[in-house]
């Protein structure tokens, strides 16, 4: 079980959270006509073997969306922040 240190609720098991995928992708502006930009946003992923910025939502706690920085080889979590205040 991963332990995620929720900035609001404190350390909790990861099965209280819902995974939300890669947090490093940015959504194109709503009126962006670039097909390529939307393709990359929806599908293309860096998928690093190493440090990964990712969304988790604390669904069984404060329901806040978080950005967690975690190593995909060791699962060591180096930082947790509210997604709202975390720069992309």
């Amino acid at each position: 079980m991963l332990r995620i240190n929720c900035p609001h609720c404190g350390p909790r098991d990861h099965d209280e959270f819902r995974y939300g995928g890669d947090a490093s992708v940015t959504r194109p502006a709503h009126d962006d006509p670039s097909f390529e930009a939307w393709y990359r946003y929806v599908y293309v992923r860096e998928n690093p073997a190493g440090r990964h910025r990712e969304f988790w939502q604390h669904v069984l706690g404060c329901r806040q969306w978080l950005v967690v920085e975690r190593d995909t080889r060791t699962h060591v979590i180096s930082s947790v922040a509210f997604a709202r205040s975390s720069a992309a």
Partner: protein
Amino acid sequence: MRRYSALSLLRNGLAGHRHWQRTWRAPEPKRAYDVVIVGAGGHGLATAFYLAENHGIRNVAVLEKGYVGGGNVGRNTTVIRSNYLLDGNTQFYEFSMKLWEGMSRALNFNVMFSQRGQIVTAHSADQLDFFSHRANVMRLNGIDAEILDRDDVRRLVPYLDFSETARFPIHGAILQGRAGTARHDAVAWGYARAADGHGIDIIQNCEVTGFLREGEKIVGVETTRGEIGAGKIGLAVAGHTSVLGRKAGLELPIESHVLQAFVTEPLKPLVDHVVAYGADHFYVSQSDKGGLVFGGNLDGYNSYAQRGNLGVVREVAEAAIALMPNISRVRLLRHWGGVMDMTPDASPIICPTPIDGLYLNGGWCYGGFKATPASGWCFAHTLATGKPHPLTAAYSLDRFRTGRTLDEAGAGPFAWLQ
């Protein structure tokens, strides 16, 4: 390659088993090959075999960073079936099934292919309707499929929960009689031996660390055992597709996720089929040694660690007990994880890439084992001709750009939900 037969067993037995030929050689890498395949798993080895067998291309090396069969081909739950719904998948997996049916003979190696049948339980009238749709698609494509009602299922697999208190009562099931299991290690060993018999070099403990280029074209690989030139390079590296793809300059719609598999202590014969639970994610078969081999969902977050977390162990155990209460006191012997290259539609990618000289076989998600022979067959065709095989034309990298995804589960573009 000396053939295996009853006579060779007798002859070697009388000689005290001291004169068996090595199953495959351990050659030093040559400076260059016509084709270099990265990854000596099932898919890479099958590709090498069919390059020689079908296309006469024998100047081939298969490079493996670890040992033959140490990756997902040795970590899966060995289920083989061809019960797919979508055009493109249906025909490809049935072609694979036909290759499985002749594999032991073609390779002169017993892969212990056992067509014991797969039963997927349905838990509502609607789910059974959906299974009927699937069965119709299969039968229209010449694939065997049967719809079973509750009494049929009970006759075949009486040990499932048919009680009044079952959380999701069994309504019926879909059965594919030709589905089954195979000895997964034997598949890797059989393809390795047969490819080696064609003169193909299988080079273990040789990790690819980069690519050699001439202008835009890739002309070889850098490895931990030196530089190796290549006319063409085929990637078949499963969970590490993104890592190597990035070194080559490919952007890929792939995320790596861990899937766990489990085996219990050995039991007397209990599960005669492959049984999959239609109300949750759980599938089980019984190995020849008696252990129940089963699996469930992905762990659910990006991972390159070949181990899983306990939350999923609990979820899978809950699903197992909901379907088969009689195994509630059976002890788990081992569980392990494999790294899956998950695509956003859970279908694979076999195609030439935008990079000259580089070909891709990946994105197998958690379904690669059953595809091993057809994947090798079609990827060999792609490497030999530079063009997709008609059976894998739908598995292009382009399909995400052009909106032609093959999303069997209808889960949407979220790899971890597939």
